[in-house]
């Protein structure tokens, strides 16, 4: 009898307890999910430096916060102050902040809701270490430093790479599908940077993520921290925009300062008085205002620079993709003649997911006086097989499938490009003579 009475009672009790558990769990769900996506440390996140037109005097500092920023300041100095805010000689206030746009996919992937923040460092001394911290609503970042570009005719080195996106539309990160290739390339750059203090920045040929939505950029910025050396040296970025970087998140997170129009992403970085890097944008009109700007820019830069380099995303001479694809044809028809007319020394292209260095090309054929095109992107993206039958990658050019970053040495007597593979082996090594010297000799 007891048993008969007890059974309904215990079933009832189990039901009540279960219901209470469900209610409690449902109540805790937002808290649990918030814990699951809360970043693993306090303070400004994703701190990075962007170089634009005049990197010997100016830099943009950008970072992420996970709540709306009320007040933020960047403190900086040519000497380390180890985070003692009062001791820093210079400071710069927050110039731009806002909530990062989230898509439905971002929310599905539970990426933390973020806010972009940007400040400008102006009036910097050339070729100087700048130690800096970011104070954002009372939270202070670790002290880091970068070196400004020189304003004297000094030999410098630059990383160039592109295509650091992961394979799939949904980011596959830790525990799901770690993006180890990108991380490995970032660790490699950190190692090379520590070994060679003459490397000043990373020029990125774009396709940073699969899209510029926050679920991709969040992890890109997270992984970029791996490029920082053990002693806190940050690798400044020179940003271009690719076909996978078109969403609004790119403009929110890659702000180029007050002097450049929003969304344009074509500009010249004067790296030294003798080295100019022109960044172009294949995602806006190629034949319109940009081409007119490019013509004027090359005409004024060429006589005043020993080394003139251009970077952009979609290649004129693709080693993998369709040679007659629309954008490639446009670049060949409307930009390449200008590169040839103004004797650009080196063109860096991305998008193909491979490694290439073309023959010197002029007028659509091999010409020792022509322009050499390097790149195609290997900063972590899956690599494609190259079409080695194409005339422009025949010897002395090359093309292969390998993750890589280019280390470019701008020297007085030559321009050396080395493609460094993920295992630190040199995959390609090439040297150019300065054109201006050659024409002066004539």
């Amino acid at each position, binding site marked *: 009898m007891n048993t008969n009475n007890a059974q309904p009672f215990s079933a009832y009790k189990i039901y009540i307890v279960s219901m209470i558990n469900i209610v409690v769990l449902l109540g805790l769900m937002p808290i649990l999910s918030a814990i699951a996506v809360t970043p693993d440390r306090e303070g400004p996140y994703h701190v990075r430096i962007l170089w634009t037109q005049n990197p010997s005097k100016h830099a943009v500092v950008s970072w992420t916060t996970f709540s709306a920023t009320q007040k933020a300041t960047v403190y900086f100095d040519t000497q380390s102050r180890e985070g003692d805010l009062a001791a820093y000689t210079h400071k710069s206030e927050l110039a731009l902040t806002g909530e990062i746009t989230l898509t439905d996919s971002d929310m599905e992937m539970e990426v933390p809701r973020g806010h972009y923040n940007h400040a400008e460092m102006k009036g910097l001394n050339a070729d100087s270490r700048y130690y800096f911290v970011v104070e954002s609503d009372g939270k202070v970042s670790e002290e880091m430093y970068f070196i400004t570009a020189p304003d004297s005719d000094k030999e410098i080195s630059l990383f160039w790479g592109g295509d650091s996106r992961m394979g799939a539309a949904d980011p596959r990160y830790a525990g799901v599908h770690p993006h180890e290739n990108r991380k490995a390339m970032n660790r490699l750059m950190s190692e090379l940077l520590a070994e060679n203090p003459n490397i000043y920045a990373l020029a990125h040929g774009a396709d940073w993520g*699969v899209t510029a939505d926050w679920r991709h950029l969040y992890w890109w910025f997270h992984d970029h921290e791996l490029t920082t050396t053990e002693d806190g040296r940050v690798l400044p970025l020179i940003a271009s925009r690719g076909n996978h970087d078109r969403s609004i998140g790119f403009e929110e997170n890659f702000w180029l300062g007050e002097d450049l129009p929003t969304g344009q992403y074509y500009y010249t970085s004067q790296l030294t008085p003798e080295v100019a890097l022109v960044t172009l944008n294949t995602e806006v009109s190629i034949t*319109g205002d940009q081409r007119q700007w490019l013509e004027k820019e090359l005409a004024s830069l060429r006589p005043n620079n020993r080394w003139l380099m251009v970077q952009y995303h979609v290649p004129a001479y693709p080693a993998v993709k369709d040679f007659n694809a629309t954008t490639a044809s*446009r670049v060949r028809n409307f930009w390449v003649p200008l590169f040839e007319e103004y004797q650009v020394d080196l063109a860096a292209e991305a998008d193909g997911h491979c490694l290439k260095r073309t023959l010197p090309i002029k007028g659509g054929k091999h010409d020792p006086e022509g322009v050499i095109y390097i790149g195609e992107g290997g900063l972590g993206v899956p*690599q494609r097989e190259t079409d080695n039958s194409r005339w422009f990658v025949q010897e002395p050019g090359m093309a292969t*499938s390998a993750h890589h970053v280019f280390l470019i040495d701008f020297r007085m007597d030559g321009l050396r490009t080395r493609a460094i593979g993920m295992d630190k082996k040199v995959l390609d090594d090439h040297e150019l003579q300065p054109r201006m010297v050659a024409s002066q000799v004539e």
Partner: protein
Amino acid sequence: MDNLNKAITCLRLATGVMCLGLALNAFSGTAIGTFLFMEWEWSHHSSVRTEHIMGYIVLAVGVSSFLYPVRPLLAVAAVYAFLVAYLGYKTGGYHFSEYTLFAYFVRIVTPLAFILALFIQKKNWIQDRSRSWAKVLLRVLSISLAITFFTHGVEAIGSHPFFIDMIIGSGINLMGLYIPESVALQALFVIGCVDILTSLWIAIRPNIYVAFWMGTWGLVTAMARITETGWMSYPEVLVRAPHYLVPLAVVALLFFVEKKEEYRVNTLATDIGI
């Protein structure tokens, strides 16, 4: 040849030419290969090979639609066109990729409409029944055209950089005339508005003159690929065959439906002794 047969010929040409374009695009790389390689993590070799196999299949469908259209094969063409559009939307990496399914709508529907047209032709129904089925076909084609043209209109008003370059590049190549970007943008706004208006018109009330305009404009914009970047862009003209041939099918169907209507009224008048 009566007007229904003329419409069928237009659809046959549109399907066949489009399949040739799709095949050529498959051989040079599409979103399918990108999807297999980047999303499914196939080897690049396997992705490219699979894409080439698909290209050969679509090529066979194209040839068969000229010579001896087989309905299941035409359905394959529609599925392939859908796949290219859907995976283009999924993999993105180009402007307005989120609208791809709408922009490609008439390409997806054309082989299916061709199946329907063959079905009407084969049945050889009495006039009233074939007229009502031709009306269905007319509706399907008009609405498909409207969706594609409307999407292109929205993209034009949204200052699609490809369209800007097409105007400037064609101006330079055809006339040696440099059209400033600001002028190209103004032209695009007008073009976009016209596209939207004509697409609404054809969707609500199919009209011969509007359909003619759409066919002409479809041909002009397809040819702009060549006038801008050269003859090697011809697969882009082929793949857009429905943009300039489906409007002609609509014209033929309008004649067919209206003539049948006249015939029906006349017969009715005779029957009741007017």
